[in-house]
Protein backbone atom coordinates (compact mmCIF):
# COMPACT_ATOMS: atom_id res chain seq x y z
CA UNK A 1 0.00 0.00 0.00
CA UNK A 2 1.48 3.30 -1.08
CA UNK A 3 -0.61 5.47 1.19
CA UNK A 4 0.12 4.79 4.84
CA UNK A 5 -2.43 6.50 7.05
CA UNK A 6 -1.05 7.43 10.45
CA UNK A 7 -2.88 7.42 13.77
CA UNK A 8 -2.52 11.20 13.80
CA UNK A 9 -4.27 11.50 10.44
CA UNK A 10 -7.17 9.34 11.58
CA UNK A 11 -7.38 11.35 14.79
CA UNK A 12 -7.30 14.63 12.84
CA UNK A 13 -9.92 13.57 10.31
CA UNK A 14 -12.04 12.37 13.24
CA UNK A 15 -11.93 15.89 14.68
CA UNK A 16 -12.94 17.39 11.33
CA UNK A 17 -15.73 14.89 10.74
CA UNK A 18 -16.79 14.64 14.40
CA UNK A 19 -16.39 10.89 14.45
CA UNK A 20 -14.83 8.93 17.25
CA UNK A 21 -13.66 5.51 16.16
CA UNK A 22 -12.95 2.59 18.42
CA UNK A 23 -9.51 1.02 18.32
CA UNK A 24 -10.66 -1.66 15.95
CA UNK A 25 -12.57 0.77 13.73
CA UNK A 26 -9.48 2.97 13.61
CA UNK A 27 -7.28 0.18 12.29
CA UNK A 28 -9.91 -0.71 9.71
CA UNK A 29 -10.30 2.97 8.73
CA UNK A 30 -6.54 3.30 8.26
CA UNK A 31 -6.51 0.29 6.00
CA UNK A 32 -9.63 1.31 4.04
CA UNK A 33 -8.54 4.88 3.56
CA UNK A 34 -5.08 3.79 2.50
CA UNK A 35 -6.37 1.43 -0.14
CA UNK A 36 -8.96 3.93 -1.39
CA UNK A 37 -6.26 6.58 -1.73
CA UNK A 38 -4.02 4.13 -3.57
CA UNK A 39 -6.88 3.59 -5.93
CA UNK A 40 -7.61 7.30 -6.28
CA UNK A 41 -3.92 7.88 -7.01
CA UNK A 42 -4.66 6.21 -10.35
CA UNK A 43 -6.00 9.60 -11.43
CA UNK A 44 -2.41 10.80 -11.34
CA UNK A 45 -1.81 8.82 -14.53
CA UNK A 46 -3.94 11.31 -16.44
CA UNK A 47 -2.51 14.56 -17.68
CA UNK A 48 -5.04 17.19 -16.66
CA UNK A 49 -2.82 20.17 -17.31
CA UNK A 50 -4.98 23.07 -18.45
CA UNK A 51 -8.27 21.24 -17.78
CA UNK A 52 -10.75 23.39 -15.84
CA UNK A 53 -12.17 21.59 -12.78
CA UNK A 54 -15.83 20.89 -13.52
CA UNK A 55 -18.11 21.28 -10.53
CA UNK A 56 -21.36 21.71 -12.45
CA UNK A 57 -22.07 19.59 -15.51
CA UNK A 58 -24.46 21.99 -17.25
CA UNK A 59 -24.22 25.65 -18.07
CA UNK A 60 -27.12 26.42 -15.72
CA UNK A 61 -26.52 29.85 -14.22
CA UNK A 62 -28.15 32.77 -12.44
CA UNK A 63 -30.93 31.07 -10.54
CA UNK A 64 -32.40 33.61 -8.15
CA UNK A 65 -35.40 34.27 -6.00
CA UNK A 66 -37.04 37.67 -5.57
CA UNK A 67 -36.67 39.36 -2.21
CA UNK A 68 -40.22 38.65 -1.05
CA UNK A 69 -41.21 37.11 2.28
CA UNK A 70 -42.94 33.82 1.57
CA UNK A 71 -42.57 32.00 4.87
CA UNK A 72 -44.69 32.49 7.95
CA UNK A 73 -44.10 31.26 11.47
CA UNK A 74 -43.12 27.57 11.27
CA UNK A 75 -41.62 27.26 14.72
CA UNK A 76 -43.71 24.34 15.79
CA UNK A 77 -42.76 22.29 12.73
CA UNK A 78 -39.12 23.29 12.94
CA UNK A 79 -38.84 22.12 16.55
CA UNK A 80 -40.91 18.98 16.08
CA UNK A 81 -37.94 16.63 15.71
CA UNK A 82 -35.60 18.33 18.19
CA UNK A 83 -33.95 15.96 20.71
CA UNK A 84 -33.78 18.84 23.19
CA UNK A 85 -36.06 21.88 23.33
CA UNK A 86 -36.65 24.74 25.73
CA UNK A 87 -38.53 28.04 25.38
CA UNK A 88 -39.01 27.60 21.65
CA UNK A 89 -35.32 26.96 21.11
CA UNK A 90 -33.06 23.98 20.47
CA UNK A 91 -31.34 22.93 23.69
CA UNK A 92 -27.71 21.92 23.26
CA UNK A 93 -24.86 21.14 25.63
CA UNK A 94 -23.34 24.28 27.07
CA UNK A 95 -21.09 26.02 24.57
CA UNK A 96 -17.98 27.86 25.65
CA UNK A 97 -16.59 30.84 23.88
Amino acid at each position, binding site marked *: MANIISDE*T*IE*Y*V*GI*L*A*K*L*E*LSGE*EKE*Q*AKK*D*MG*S*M*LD*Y*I*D*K*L*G*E*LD*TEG*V*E*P*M*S*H*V*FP*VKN*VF*REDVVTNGD*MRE*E*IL*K*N*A*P*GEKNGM*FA*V*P*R*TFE
Partner: protein
Amino acid sequence: MNILDMTAVGLAAAIKNKEVTVRQATEAVLAQIEEKEADFHCYVTVDKEGALKQAEEVQKKIDAGELDGPLAGVPVAIKDNMCTEGMLTTCSSKILGNFVPTFSSEAVLNLQKAGAVILGKTNMDEFAMGSTTETSAYGVTKNPWNPEHVPGGSSGGSAAAVAAGECFYALGSDTGGSIRQPASFCGVVGLKPTYGRVSRYGLIAYGSSLDQIGPLCKDVTDCAAIMEIIATHDLKDSTSVEQEDTDFTSALVDDVKGMRIGIPKDYFGEGLDPEVKDAVLKAAEVLKEKGAVVEEFDLSLVEYAIPTYYTIAAAEASSNLERFDGIKYGYRTEEYEGLHNMYKKSRSEGFGAEVKRRIMLGSFVLSSGYYDAYYLKALRVKALIKKAFDEAFAKYDVILGPVAPTTAPKLGESLSDPLKMYLGDIYTISVNLAGLPGLSMPCGIDSKGLPIGLQLIGDCFNEKKLIQTAYAYEKARGAFGRKEDK
Protein backbone atom coordinates in the same frame (compact mmCIF):
# COMPACT_ATOMS: atom_id res chain seq x y z
CA MET B 1 -56.21 -10.59 -14.73
CA ASN B 2 -54.65 -10.55 -11.28
CA ILE B 3 -54.41 -6.96 -10.12
CA LEU B 4 -50.82 -7.48 -9.00
CA ASP B 5 -49.80 -8.48 -12.51
CA MET B 6 -50.95 -5.18 -13.94
CA THR B 7 -48.50 -2.48 -14.87
CA ALA B 8 -49.01 0.93 -13.32
CA VAL B 9 -50.46 2.36 -16.52
CA GLY B 10 -52.59 -0.75 -16.96
CA LEU B 11 -53.97 -0.48 -13.45
CA ALA B 12 -54.78 3.21 -13.84
CA ALA B 13 -56.70 2.40 -17.02
CA ALA B 14 -58.61 -0.36 -15.23
CA ILE B 15 -59.45 2.07 -12.42
CA LYS B 16 -60.59 4.63 -14.93
CA ASN B 17 -62.79 2.03 -16.61
CA LYS B 18 -64.21 1.10 -13.20
CA GLU B 19 -62.93 -2.46 -13.51
CA VAL B 20 -60.93 -2.02 -10.32
CA THR B 21 -61.30 0.47 -7.48
CA VAL B 22 -58.35 2.25 -5.94
CA ARG B 23 -59.21 0.56 -2.68
CA GLN B 24 -59.14 -2.90 -4.26
CA ALA B 25 -55.76 -2.21 -5.80
CA THR B 26 -54.42 -0.83 -2.52
CA GLU B 27 -55.77 -3.75 -0.54
CA ALA B 28 -54.34 -6.23 -3.01
CA VAL B 29 -50.90 -4.72 -2.79
CA LEU B 30 -51.08 -4.40 1.01
CA ALA B 31 -51.99 -8.08 1.21
CA GLN B 32 -49.00 -8.91 -0.96
CA ILE B 33 -46.79 -6.82 1.34
CA GLU B 34 -48.19 -8.66 4.33
CA GLU B 35 -47.40 -11.97 2.72
CA LYS B 36 -43.99 -11.23 1.25
CA GLU B 37 -42.33 -8.81 3.65
CA ALA B 38 -41.06 -11.58 5.90
CA ASP B 39 -39.22 -13.05 2.90
CA PHE B 40 -37.92 -9.94 1.16
CA HIS B 41 -38.10 -7.02 3.61
CA CYS B 42 -38.49 -4.30 0.99
CA TYR B 43 -39.91 -1.66 3.30
CA VAL B 44 -38.70 0.29 6.33
CA THR B 45 -42.18 1.72 6.85
CA VAL B 46 -45.53 0.53 5.53
CA ASP B 47 -48.35 3.00 6.05
CA LYS B 48 -51.34 0.72 5.74
CA GLU B 49 -53.93 3.04 7.25
CA GLY B 50 -52.64 6.06 5.42
CA ALA B 51 -52.68 4.19 2.12
CA LEU B 52 -56.28 3.11 2.55
CA LYS B 53 -57.27 6.63 3.47
CA GLN B 54 -55.49 8.05 0.45
CA ALA B 55 -57.17 5.40 -1.69
CA GLU B 56 -60.60 6.69 -0.64
CA GLU B 57 -59.65 10.30 -1.32
CA VAL B 58 -58.12 9.53 -4.69
CA GLN B 59 -61.12 7.44 -5.70
CA LYS B 60 -63.41 10.36 -4.89
CA LYS B 61 -61.35 12.67 -7.06
CA ILE B 62 -61.33 10.17 -9.90
CA ASP B 63 -65.09 9.74 -9.61
CA ALA B 64 -65.55 13.49 -9.58
CA GLY B 65 -63.48 13.76 -12.74
CA GLU B 66 -60.82 15.81 -10.95
CA LEU B 67 -58.14 13.22 -11.58
CA ASP B 68 -57.73 11.39 -14.84
CA GLY B 69 -53.97 11.14 -15.34
CA PRO B 70 -52.28 7.96 -16.55
CA LEU B 71 -51.26 6.96 -13.00
CA ALA B 72 -54.27 8.12 -10.97
CA GLY B 73 -55.04 5.70 -8.16
CA VAL B 74 -51.89 3.61 -8.48
CA PRO B 75 -50.10 2.63 -5.23
CA VAL B 76 -46.41 3.57 -5.13
CA ALA B 77 -43.43 2.96 -2.84
CA ILE B 78 -40.94 5.71 -2.04
CA LYS B 79 -37.27 5.20 -1.24
CA ASP B 80 -36.64 6.16 2.35
CA ASN B 81 -34.31 9.05 1.52
CA MET B 82 -37.14 11.21 0.18
CA CYS B 83 -38.94 13.34 2.74
CA THR B 84 -42.60 12.50 3.23
CA GLU B 85 -44.62 14.84 5.41
CA GLY B 86 -45.74 13.10 8.59
CA MET B 87 -44.15 9.79 7.61
CA LEU B 88 -40.95 8.44 9.11
CA THR B 89 -37.96 9.07 6.81
CA THR B 90 -34.83 7.30 7.98
CA CYS B 91 -32.40 6.95 5.05
CA SER B 92 -32.11 3.47 6.57
CA SER B 93 -29.90 5.01 9.24
CA LYS B 94 -30.07 4.88 13.00
CA ILE B 95 -29.24 8.59 13.07
CA LEU B 96 -32.64 9.38 11.50
CA GLY B 97 -34.45 6.57 13.31
CA ASN B 98 -37.14 8.92 14.63
CA PHE B 99 -37.19 11.63 11.98
CA VAL B 100 -40.62 12.66 10.73
CA PRO B 101 -40.30 15.38 8.06
CA THR B 102 -42.63 18.37 8.07
CA PHE B 103 -42.65 18.62 4.28
CA SER B 104 -42.64 16.26 1.32
CA SER B 105 -40.11 16.13 -1.45
CA GLU B 106 -41.16 17.73 -4.72
CA ALA B 107 -41.15 14.43 -6.62
CA VAL B 108 -43.50 12.88 -4.05
CA LEU B 109 -45.79 15.93 -4.18
CA ASN B 110 -45.93 15.62 -7.95
CA LEU B 111 -46.94 11.97 -7.67
CA GLN B 112 -49.60 12.83 -5.11
CA LYS B 113 -50.98 15.53 -7.36
CA ALA B 114 -51.25 12.87 -10.07
CA GLY B 115 -53.26 10.65 -7.74
CA ALA B 116 -50.63 8.29 -6.35
CA VAL B 117 -51.31 6.29 -3.19
CA ILE B 118 -48.16 6.26 -1.04
CA LEU B 119 -47.73 2.79 0.47
CA GLY B 120 -44.62 3.43 2.50
CA LYS B 121 -40.88 3.85 2.45
CA THR B 122 -38.49 1.36 0.96
CA ASN B 123 -35.28 0.03 2.41
CA MET B 124 -31.95 1.18 1.05
CA ASP B 125 -28.27 1.25 1.76
CA GLU B 126 -27.71 3.69 4.61
CA PHE B 127 -27.73 7.20 3.10
CA ALA B 128 -27.64 5.51 -0.33
CA MET B 129 -24.05 4.41 0.25
CA GLY B 130 -23.77 0.89 -1.00
CA SER B 131 -24.66 -1.42 -3.83
CA THR B 132 -26.51 -4.20 -2.01
CA THR B 133 -28.98 -2.69 0.50
CA GLU B 134 -27.00 -4.56 3.15
CA THR B 135 -25.73 -1.38 4.85
CA SER B 136 -29.26 -0.52 6.01
CA ALA B 137 -29.63 -0.14 9.78
CA TYR B 138 -33.02 -1.85 9.47
CA GLY B 139 -32.14 -5.21 8.03
CA VAL B 140 -31.21 -6.62 4.66
CA THR B 141 -33.56 -6.65 1.68
CA LYS B 142 -33.53 -9.85 -0.33
CA ASN B 143 -33.80 -10.41 -4.03
CA PRO B 144 -37.28 -11.68 -4.92
CA TRP B 145 -35.75 -13.82 -7.68
CA ASN B 146 -33.67 -15.63 -5.10
CA PRO B 147 -33.70 -14.52 -1.47
CA GLU B 148 -30.15 -15.78 -0.98
CA HIS B 149 -29.02 -12.95 -3.23
CA VAL B 150 -28.95 -9.20 -2.75
CA PRO B 151 -31.42 -6.98 -4.60
CA GLY B 152 -28.64 -4.54 -5.43
CA GLY B 153 -28.56 -1.02 -4.13
CA SER B 154 -28.84 1.47 -2.95
CA SER B 155 -32.48 1.54 -4.11
CA GLY B 156 -32.73 -2.19 -3.40
CA GLY B 157 -35.98 -1.94 -1.45
CA SER B 158 -37.67 -0.07 -4.31
CA ALA B 159 -36.45 -2.50 -6.97
CA ALA B 160 -37.35 -5.56 -4.90
CA ALA B 161 -40.79 -4.15 -4.04
CA VAL B 162 -41.58 -3.72 -7.76
CA ALA B 163 -40.25 -7.21 -8.53
CA ALA B 164 -42.16 -8.80 -5.67
CA GLY B 165 -45.46 -7.12 -6.52
CA GLU B 166 -45.29 -5.19 -3.25
CA CYS B 167 -46.01 -1.99 -5.18
CA PHE B 168 -46.87 -1.09 -8.76
CA TYR B 169 -43.92 1.22 -9.17
CA ALA B 170 -41.44 2.99 -6.95
CA LEU B 171 -39.19 6.00 -6.75
CA GLY B 172 -35.48 5.51 -6.24
CA SER B 173 -32.46 7.75 -6.35
CA ASP B 174 -29.28 7.25 -8.30
CA THR B 175 -25.92 8.75 -7.36
CA GLY B 176 -23.62 6.18 -8.97
CA GLY B 177 -26.00 3.51 -10.25
CA SER B 178 -28.42 3.19 -7.34
CA ILE B 179 -31.51 2.93 -9.55
CA ARG B 180 -30.07 1.10 -12.56
CA GLN B 181 -28.11 -1.59 -10.75
CA PRO B 182 -30.91 -2.82 -8.43
CA ALA B 183 -33.32 -2.61 -11.39
CA SER B 184 -30.95 -4.87 -13.24
CA PHE B 185 -30.57 -7.30 -10.31
CA CYS B 186 -34.34 -7.47 -9.75
CA GLY B 187 -35.43 -7.64 -13.39
CA VAL B 188 -37.33 -4.35 -13.52
CA VAL B 189 -37.01 -1.13 -15.51
CA GLY B 190 -35.17 1.77 -13.89
CA LEU B 191 -34.30 5.20 -15.21
CA LYS B 192 -31.79 7.67 -13.86
CA PRO B 193 -32.88 10.92 -15.52
CA THR B 194 -30.58 13.70 -16.70
CA TYR B 195 -29.22 15.71 -13.76
CA GLY B 196 -31.66 18.59 -13.24
CA ARG B 197 -34.69 16.79 -14.71
CA VAL B 198 -36.31 15.88 -11.41
CA SER B 199 -36.25 18.24 -8.45
CA ARG B 200 -33.96 17.18 -5.62
CA TYR B 201 -35.94 19.26 -3.12
CA GLY B 202 -36.73 16.91 -0.25
CA LEU B 203 -34.24 14.26 -1.33
CA ILE B 204 -31.81 13.79 1.55
CA ALA B 205 -28.53 14.46 -0.18
CA TYR B 206 -25.66 12.04 -0.58
CA GLY B 207 -23.62 13.52 -3.44
CA SER B 208 -25.50 16.67 -4.43
CA SER B 209 -23.88 17.07 -7.84
CA LEU B 210 -24.67 13.45 -8.75
CA ASP B 211 -27.98 12.58 -7.05
CA GLN B 212 -31.07 12.23 -9.18
CA ILE B 213 -34.50 10.75 -8.46
CA GLY B 214 -36.05 8.37 -10.96
CA PRO B 215 -38.59 5.59 -11.44
CA LEU B 216 -38.35 1.83 -10.90
CA CYS B 217 -41.18 0.09 -12.65
CA LYS B 218 -42.45 -2.91 -14.57
CA ASP B 219 -42.05 -1.75 -18.15
CA VAL B 220 -40.96 1.08 -20.40
CA THR B 221 -44.49 2.46 -20.78
CA ASP B 222 -44.75 2.92 -17.01
CA CYS B 223 -41.32 4.51 -17.02
CA ALA B 224 -42.39 7.15 -19.57
CA ALA B 225 -45.64 7.87 -17.73
CA ILE B 226 -43.88 8.32 -14.38
CA MET B 227 -41.28 10.59 -15.94
CA GLU B 228 -43.98 12.88 -17.30
CA ILE B 229 -45.20 13.39 -13.76
CA ILE B 230 -41.93 13.83 -11.88
CA ALA B 231 -39.95 15.86 -14.44
CA THR B 232 -40.77 19.43 -13.44
CA HIS B 233 -38.91 22.69 -13.10
CA ASP B 234 -38.79 23.42 -9.37
CA LEU B 235 -37.88 26.93 -8.24
CA LYS B 236 -36.85 25.52 -4.86
CA ASP B 237 -33.99 23.56 -6.44
CA SER B 238 -31.42 25.83 -8.10
CA THR B 239 -30.10 22.89 -10.13
CA SER B 240 -33.54 22.04 -11.49
CA VAL B 241 -33.70 22.79 -15.19
CA GLU B 242 -36.44 24.35 -17.26
CA GLN B 243 -38.06 21.44 -19.03
CA GLU B 244 -38.38 20.88 -22.70
CA ASP B 245 -39.37 17.73 -24.47
CA THR B 246 -41.19 16.17 -21.52
CA ASP B 247 -43.84 14.31 -23.51
CA PHE B 248 -41.99 11.10 -22.77
CA THR B 249 -44.92 8.87 -23.66
CA SER B 250 -44.78 10.18 -27.23
CA ALA B 251 -41.46 8.32 -27.48
CA LEU B 252 -43.19 4.96 -26.96
CA VAL B 253 -42.70 4.09 -30.61
CA ASP B 254 -41.67 0.67 -31.83
CA ASP B 255 -39.15 1.95 -34.33
CA VAL B 256 -35.38 2.16 -34.14
CA LYS B 257 -34.69 2.43 -37.84
CA GLY B 258 -31.59 4.53 -38.28
CA MET B 259 -31.05 4.92 -34.54
CA ARG B 260 -27.28 5.13 -34.07
CA ILE B 261 -26.24 2.88 -31.21
CA GLY B 262 -22.65 2.81 -29.94
CA ILE B 263 -21.23 -0.09 -27.95
CA PRO B 264 -18.21 0.95 -25.89
CA LYS B 265 -15.60 -1.78 -26.22
CA ASP B 266 -14.27 -0.73 -22.83
CA TYR B 267 -17.49 -2.00 -21.25
CA PHE B 268 -16.95 -5.56 -22.44
CA GLY B 269 -13.46 -6.24 -21.19
CA GLU B 270 -12.05 -8.07 -18.21
CA GLY B 271 -14.34 -8.58 -15.24
CA LEU B 272 -17.56 -8.86 -17.20
CA ASP B 273 -19.43 -12.09 -16.61
CA PRO B 274 -19.72 -13.98 -19.95
CA GLU B 275 -23.42 -14.66 -19.46
CA VAL B 276 -24.07 -10.95 -18.94
CA LYS B 277 -21.92 -10.13 -21.94
CA ASP B 278 -23.80 -12.54 -24.18
CA ALA B 279 -27.23 -11.34 -23.11
CA VAL B 280 -26.33 -7.67 -23.62
CA LEU B 281 -24.77 -8.27 -27.03
CA LYS B 282 -27.81 -10.31 -27.99
CA ALA B 283 -30.01 -7.33 -27.13
CA ALA B 284 -27.83 -5.16 -29.37
CA GLU B 285 -28.31 -7.70 -32.11
CA VAL B 286 -32.09 -7.49 -31.68
CA LEU B 287 -31.98 -3.72 -32.11
CA LYS B 288 -29.76 -4.09 -35.13
CA GLU B 289 -32.24 -6.46 -36.69
CA LYS B 290 -34.92 -3.84 -36.13
CA GLY B 291 -32.96 -1.35 -38.19
CA ALA B 292 -30.68 0.37 -35.68
CA VAL B 293 -27.13 1.18 -36.76
CA VAL B 294 -25.01 -0.59 -34.17
CA GLU B 295 -21.25 -0.25 -33.95
CA GLU B 296 -18.45 -0.58 -31.44
CA PHE B 297 -16.30 2.34 -30.35
CA ASP B 298 -13.70 3.37 -27.77
CA LEU B 299 -15.22 5.45 -25.00
CA SER B 300 -11.95 5.74 -23.05
CA LEU B 301 -11.35 6.78 -19.42
CA VAL B 302 -13.73 4.11 -18.13
CA GLU B 303 -11.32 2.88 -15.45
CA TYR B 304 -10.92 6.42 -14.09
CA ALA B 305 -14.61 6.90 -13.40
CA ILE B 306 -14.63 5.00 -10.11
CA PRO B 307 -11.78 6.85 -8.35
CA THR B 308 -13.20 10.14 -9.65
CA TYR B 309 -16.64 9.26 -8.38
CA TYR B 310 -15.55 8.12 -4.94
CA THR B 311 -13.52 11.28 -4.43
CA ILE B 312 -16.34 13.63 -5.42
CA ALA B 313 -19.18 11.69 -3.81
CA ALA B 314 -17.30 11.15 -0.55
CA ALA B 315 -16.33 14.82 -0.37
CA GLU B 316 -19.87 16.03 -0.92
CA ALA B 317 -21.26 13.39 1.43
CA SER B 318 -18.86 14.37 4.21
CA SER B 319 -20.31 17.88 4.04
CA ASN B 320 -23.94 16.91 3.39
CA LEU B 321 -23.97 14.62 6.42
CA GLU B 322 -22.53 17.22 8.80
CA ARG B 323 -26.04 18.39 9.61
CA PHE B 324 -26.74 15.14 11.45
CA ASP B 325 -25.38 16.27 14.78
CA GLY B 326 -27.99 15.44 17.42
CA ILE B 327 -29.24 19.01 17.72
CA LYS B 328 -32.14 19.69 15.36
CA TYR B 329 -33.46 16.20 14.67
CA GLY B 330 -32.52 12.58 14.76
CA TYR B 331 -30.44 10.56 17.15
CA ARG B 332 -28.65 12.09 20.14
CA THR B 333 -26.46 9.89 22.31
CA GLU B 334 -27.62 9.24 25.85
CA GLU B 335 -24.60 10.36 27.80
CA TYR B 336 -22.01 12.91 26.89
CA GLU B 337 -19.63 15.43 28.31
CA GLY B 338 -19.96 18.72 26.52
CA LEU B 339 -20.77 19.71 23.02
CA HIS B 340 -18.03 18.07 20.98
CA ASN B 341 -18.35 14.80 22.81
CA MET B 342 -22.08 14.90 22.10
CA TYR B 343 -21.37 15.47 18.40
CA LYS B 344 -18.84 12.67 18.20
CA LYS B 345 -20.81 10.11 20.15
CA SER B 346 -24.10 10.83 18.41
CA ARG B 347 -22.53 10.58 14.99
CA SER B 348 -20.32 7.61 15.74
CA GLU B 349 -23.24 5.67 17.20
CA GLY B 350 -25.76 6.94 14.63
CA PHE B 351 -23.86 6.20 11.42
CA GLY B 352 -22.95 2.74 10.16
CA ALA B 353 -19.51 1.58 9.03
CA GLU B 354 -19.85 2.33 5.30
CA VAL B 355 -21.17 5.83 5.93
CA LYS B 356 -18.34 6.54 8.37
CA ARG B 357 -15.84 5.19 5.87
CA ARG B 358 -17.03 7.62 3.19
CA ILE B 359 -17.29 10.57 5.58
CA MET B 360 -13.71 9.97 6.69
CA LEU B 361 -12.47 9.71 3.11
CA GLY B 362 -14.44 12.78 2.06
CA SER B 363 -13.19 14.86 4.98
CA PHE B 364 -9.67 13.81 4.18
CA VAL B 365 -9.71 14.67 0.46
CA LEU B 366 -11.05 18.14 1.27
CA SER B 367 -8.66 18.81 4.13
CA SER B 368 -5.91 21.34 4.02
CA GLY B 369 -3.07 20.19 1.79
CA TYR B 370 -5.03 17.52 -0.08
CA TYR B 371 -7.78 19.49 -1.77
CA ASP B 372 -5.83 20.18 -4.97
CA ALA B 373 -4.29 16.75 -5.27
CA TYR B 374 -7.52 14.83 -4.74
CA TYR B 375 -10.67 16.89 -5.05
CA LEU B 376 -9.63 19.30 -7.79
CA LYS B 377 -7.91 16.52 -9.67
CA ALA B 378 -11.16 14.53 -9.61
CA LEU B 379 -13.11 17.55 -10.92
CA ARG B 380 -10.62 17.82 -13.78
CA VAL B 381 -10.97 14.15 -14.66
CA LYS B 382 -14.73 14.60 -14.49
CA ALA B 383 -14.39 17.28 -17.18
CA LEU B 384 -12.44 14.80 -19.33
CA ILE B 385 -15.06 12.10 -18.84
CA LYS B 386 -17.80 14.54 -19.80
CA LYS B 387 -15.82 15.42 -22.92
CA ALA B 388 -15.45 11.74 -23.87
CA PHE B 389 -19.25 11.35 -23.70
CA ASP B 390 -19.80 14.54 -25.68
CA GLU B 391 -17.61 13.10 -28.42
CA ALA B 392 -19.50 9.80 -28.31
CA PHE B 393 -22.87 11.52 -28.57
CA ALA B 394 -21.68 13.42 -31.60
CA LYS B 395 -21.67 10.01 -33.29
CA TYR B 396 -24.39 8.06 -31.49
CA ASP B 397 -27.93 8.56 -30.24
CA VAL B 398 -27.63 5.89 -27.60
CA ILE B 399 -24.79 4.05 -25.90
CA LEU B 400 -25.55 0.42 -25.09
CA GLY B 401 -23.83 -1.77 -22.52
CA PRO B 402 -24.24 -3.85 -19.38
CA VAL B 403 -25.47 -2.32 -16.11
CA ALA B 404 -23.22 -4.35 -13.84
CA PRO B 405 -20.40 -6.84 -14.39
CA THR B 406 -22.41 -9.67 -12.84
CA THR B 407 -25.91 -10.57 -11.81
CA ALA B 408 -26.92 -10.19 -8.15
CA PRO B 409 -24.25 -11.53 -5.79
CA LYS B 410 -25.08 -13.62 -2.75
CA LEU B 411 -25.91 -11.89 0.51
CA GLY B 412 -22.82 -11.06 2.55
CA GLU B 413 -20.38 -11.50 -0.35
CA SER B 414 -19.79 -7.85 -1.16
CA LEU B 415 -19.31 -5.95 2.07
CA SER B 416 -16.11 -7.70 3.10
CA ASP B 417 -14.12 -5.91 0.42
CA PRO B 418 -15.39 -2.38 -0.19
CA LEU B 419 -13.04 -1.74 -3.08
CA LYS B 420 -14.35 -4.78 -4.90
CA MET B 421 -17.89 -3.63 -4.25
CA TYR B 422 -17.04 -0.20 -5.68
CA LEU B 423 -15.72 -1.88 -8.84
CA GLY B 424 -19.20 -3.23 -9.48
CA ASP B 425 -20.28 0.34 -10.26
CA ILE B 426 -17.91 0.65 -13.20
CA TYR B 427 -20.57 0.87 -15.95
CA THR B 428 -23.03 3.09 -14.13
CA ILE B 429 -20.89 5.67 -12.40
CA SER B 430 -19.65 7.75 -15.33
CA VAL B 431 -23.26 8.46 -16.30
CA ASN B 432 -23.68 10.34 -13.00
CA LEU B 433 -20.38 12.16 -13.40
CA ALA B 434 -21.46 13.39 -16.82
CA GLY B 435 -25.05 14.12 -15.69
CA LEU B 436 -26.49 11.84 -18.39
CA PRO B 437 -29.71 9.82 -18.42
CA GLY B 438 -29.33 6.05 -18.14
CA LEU B 439 -31.94 3.34 -18.39
CA SER B 440 -31.72 -0.20 -17.11
CA MET B 441 -34.01 -2.98 -18.30
CA PRO B 442 -33.97 -6.75 -18.18
CA CYS B 443 -32.48 -8.54 -21.18
CA GLY B 444 -32.14 -12.11 -20.00
CA ILE B 445 -31.73 -14.58 -17.17
CA ASP B 446 -28.48 -16.26 -16.24
CA SER B 447 -27.88 -19.89 -15.40
CA LYS B 448 -28.55 -19.13 -11.71
CA GLY B 449 -31.99 -17.86 -12.65
CA LEU B 450 -31.15 -14.26 -11.96
CA PRO B 451 -32.06 -11.35 -14.24
CA ILE B 452 -29.48 -9.67 -16.43
CA GLY B 453 -29.71 -5.93 -17.08
CA LEU B 454 -29.17 -3.92 -20.24
CA GLN B 455 -28.09 -0.30 -19.93
CA LEU B 456 -28.95 2.42 -22.43
CA ILE B 457 -27.24 5.76 -21.99
CA GLY B 458 -28.38 8.95 -23.70
CA ASP B 459 -27.13 12.46 -24.12
CA CYS B 460 -28.32 15.11 -21.68
CA PHE B 461 -32.08 15.67 -21.82
CA ASN B 462 -32.41 12.96 -24.42
CA GLU B 463 -34.47 10.56 -22.34
CA LYS B 464 -36.90 10.19 -25.21
CA LYS B 465 -34.34 8.42 -27.35
CA LEU B 466 -33.68 6.01 -24.49
CA ILE B 467 -37.36 5.38 -24.04
CA GLN B 468 -37.88 4.81 -27.76
CA THR B 469 -34.96 2.38 -27.98
CA ALA B 470 -36.01 0.59 -24.80
CA TYR B 471 -39.60 0.35 -25.97
CA ALA B 472 -38.61 -1.10 -29.32
CA TYR B 473 -36.37 -3.65 -27.60
CA GLU B 474 -39.09 -4.51 -25.10
CA LYS B 475 -41.53 -5.17 -27.93
CA ALA B 476 -39.07 -7.58 -29.54
CA ARG B 477 -38.08 -9.19 -26.24
CA GLY B 478 -41.62 -9.75 -25.03
CA ALA B 479 -42.94 -9.56 -21.49
CA PHE B 480 -40.48 -10.01 -18.66
CA GLY B 481 -42.70 -10.76 -15.73
CA ARG B 482 -42.13 -11.73 -12.17
CA LYS B 483 -40.27 -14.86 -11.25
CA GLU B 484 -43.48 -16.75 -10.55
CA ASP B 485 -44.39 -16.41 -14.19
CA LYS B 486 -41.22 -18.09 -15.46
